[in-house]
């Protein structure tokens, strides 16, 4: 009996062949309708961010951007469904959570503020053929390792430093500051060391009028930076160039005040830390006059205004001018994904990636030309602005066409702040 049944299931009859052929024809015939359904359905995006751990302040800021994005995108005709994932400022967690998100049906991944976590996620996305849109992450290797399922709408460390150094030169010209020496102090994480490598490569040919006395790496998780500041003070530079995160930027300034070290300027050639709310809250007037040369939101753009309005209504406790960098780039990453989905009319990873690579978005949030990606998946057209803290608010001081105030250098002494 048993043998008879087995032989029955194994045998291909004319009837089963006809049914199979019919089914295949039905599937093939209705395929265009699947595409139509994909166009109508929301794109499922996993947003992986470091919402806890030492990068949490910035991760939370990006998260606020992701939370308001669906409403703004919907007003522009894009449908997205977001899954919010915390990678705990840990690359291993980022990798496993990305894998899990894809298993749970995520069609595009966006993240992850931190280069180390993004690199870990890129490997998973590449294997699973799911597009990864990098919101923030400057390590050059992200777009230098030949990933086919990754694009980055954020400058590389080299681009940041290149733009940043050019703006430092402009700042010195505009303020007529006589600076002869500088020290470069940077966090020793993936981002910080990438910035260091870019500085080492670009500074000698940047044509700046000052000498770089030393580059000093520090642990951003250190409890204080007193020894680091003592070391810098011993060199007595005119300018302190920094690559920081929020918490260590506070420690840095606090120890500078304690040791009465007053350089003519604190300038970041492109890093977070000096514009975080945590920095303003922790230091009050001592946070003023620090300058950071980074891409910034264009206050005149229609989409920025729409994003700001949505952000204010959802986050009354947070200031958009302080958060616009993290919020803006996270929103733009989601915009890239949503626009590609609309164009592709498919949720297939390869189709989506093809559409993402053909991105050409002129109306967007961050200052600069249309969002486009080169063959490596890098948007190479993102300029920087020189933003200075004034009255505890980020204020664009250069380039002149988008500036709302003139830069102030040398910065007033610590005791002269009110």
């Amino acid at each position: 009996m048993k043998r008879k049944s087995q032989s029955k299931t194994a045998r291909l009859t004319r009837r089963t062949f006809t049914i199979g052929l019919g089914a295949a024809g039905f599937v093939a015939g209705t395929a265009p309708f699947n595409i139509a359904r994909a166009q109508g359905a929301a794109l499922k995006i996993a947003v992986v961010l470091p919402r806890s751990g030492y990068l949490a302040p910035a991760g939370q800021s990006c998260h606020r951007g992701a939370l308001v994005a669906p409403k703004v995108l919907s007003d522009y005709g894009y449908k997205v469904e977001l899954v919010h994932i915390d990678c705990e400022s840990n690359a291993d967690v980022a990798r496993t959570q990305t894998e899990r998100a894809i298993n749970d049906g995520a069609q595009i991944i966006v993240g992850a503020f931190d280069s180390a976590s993004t690199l870990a996620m890129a490997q998973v996305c590449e294997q699973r053929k799911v597009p990864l849109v990098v919101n923030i992450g400057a390590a050059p290797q992200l777009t230098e390792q030949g990933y086919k399922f990754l694009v980055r709408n954020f400058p590389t460390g080299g681009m940041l430093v290149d733009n940043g150094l050019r703006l430092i030169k402009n700042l010195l010209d505009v303020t007529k500051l006589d600076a002869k020496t500088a020290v470069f102090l940077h966090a020793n994480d993936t981002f910080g060391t990438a910035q260091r490598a870019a500085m080492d490569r670009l500074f000698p040919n940047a044509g700046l009028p000052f000498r770089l006395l030393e580059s000093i790496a520090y642990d951003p998780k250190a409890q204080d930076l007193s020894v680091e500041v003592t070391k810098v003070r011993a060199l007595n530079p005119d300018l302190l160039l920094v690559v920081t995160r929020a918490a260590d930027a506070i420690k840095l300034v606090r120890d500078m005040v304690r040791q009465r070290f007053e350089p003519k300027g604190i300038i970041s050639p492109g890093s977070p830390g000096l514009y975080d709310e945590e920095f303003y809250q922790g230091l009050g007037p001592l946070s003023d006059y620090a300058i950071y040369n980074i891409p910034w939101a264009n206050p005149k753009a229609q989409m920025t205004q729409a994003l700001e309005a949505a952000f204010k209504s959802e986050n009354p406790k947070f200031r958009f001018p302080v958060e616009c960098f993290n919020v803006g780039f996270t929103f733009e990453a989601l915009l890239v994904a949503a626009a590609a989905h609309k164009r592709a009319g498919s949720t297939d990873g390869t189709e989506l990636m093809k559409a993402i690579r053909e991105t050409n978005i002129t109306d967007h949030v961050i200052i600069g030309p249309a969002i486009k990606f080169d063959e490596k998946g890098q948007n190479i057209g993102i300029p920087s602005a020189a933003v200075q803290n004034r009255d505890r608010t980020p204020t664009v001081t250069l380039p002149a066409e988008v500036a709302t105030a003139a830069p102030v250098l040398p910065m007033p002494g610590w005791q002269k702040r009110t």
Partner: protein
Amino acid sequence: MNLAIVLNVVIQGVLTGLVYGLMALGLSVIFGVVRVVNFAHGEFAVVAMYAAYLLFVTLGLDPLISLFPIAAAFFLVGFLLQASLVNRFVGRSEHEQFILLVGLAIIIVNGLLMIFGPDARPTNLPYSFDSYLLGPLFIDKARVYAAIGALVVSAALFAFFRYTTIGTAIRACADNLTGAAVVGLNVKRLYALTFGLGLACVGAAGALMVTIADASPLLAQAFTLLAFTIVIIGGLGSMTGALVAGILIGVSEALASFFLAPSMKSMFSFALLVAVLVLRPQGLMGRRV
């Protein structure tokens, strides 16, 4: 190299090291008597930091004053924790004790994250940005006050163990548990008192630490690891050893940062740890068992 700058670095290391030492003292006291390693040590220190921060922002209490009520509250917490929970695990296998206290540590850190979020909370005291100028030396006021506080609390603890009846009884438990029980000492009560004293030390150290570092849940693991390193270098159960090792770690980290690279300073603490484990496994001031 300017000698004044090096001296400045050494002084900073000594001052920070004294607070480190006080923090590790609590761990050493608990292990020396109860023979339970408190794997939630750093987490309790961070809770104390948040307590000092809250008392400052709500009542305007300087951490140098609030350390006393915080230490008292931590004593009570430690006493109750030992009496209700940890005593059940005394004498059980080490991995069971480990799981219990690591579990407690995870609960504390996540509780702090839920209540305060991940941002560091600075306590901006009137003297937070001030320093003493002694010739060419800049010495942070906050660090000086914290170090003096650490010395006072340590001296009080030493005096308690040396000159009070309860302190002598606790030392008796540490030296010879069976003998202490035979002469009628209430060992479980003394264990609870010891755990309370250990946590009071951590409470005081956390309150002092908030004057020189911002309160953040993320510090907890680093503090636990630091306290272990100090206690092992100083000698498990040795109170003097904990203070000496605290200063040693503080100075070695400061000098390594200055002469080599700031990012290499933790490496020196661990190199010191490895050297002590190889050359003097009982620690600098520990007794050979």
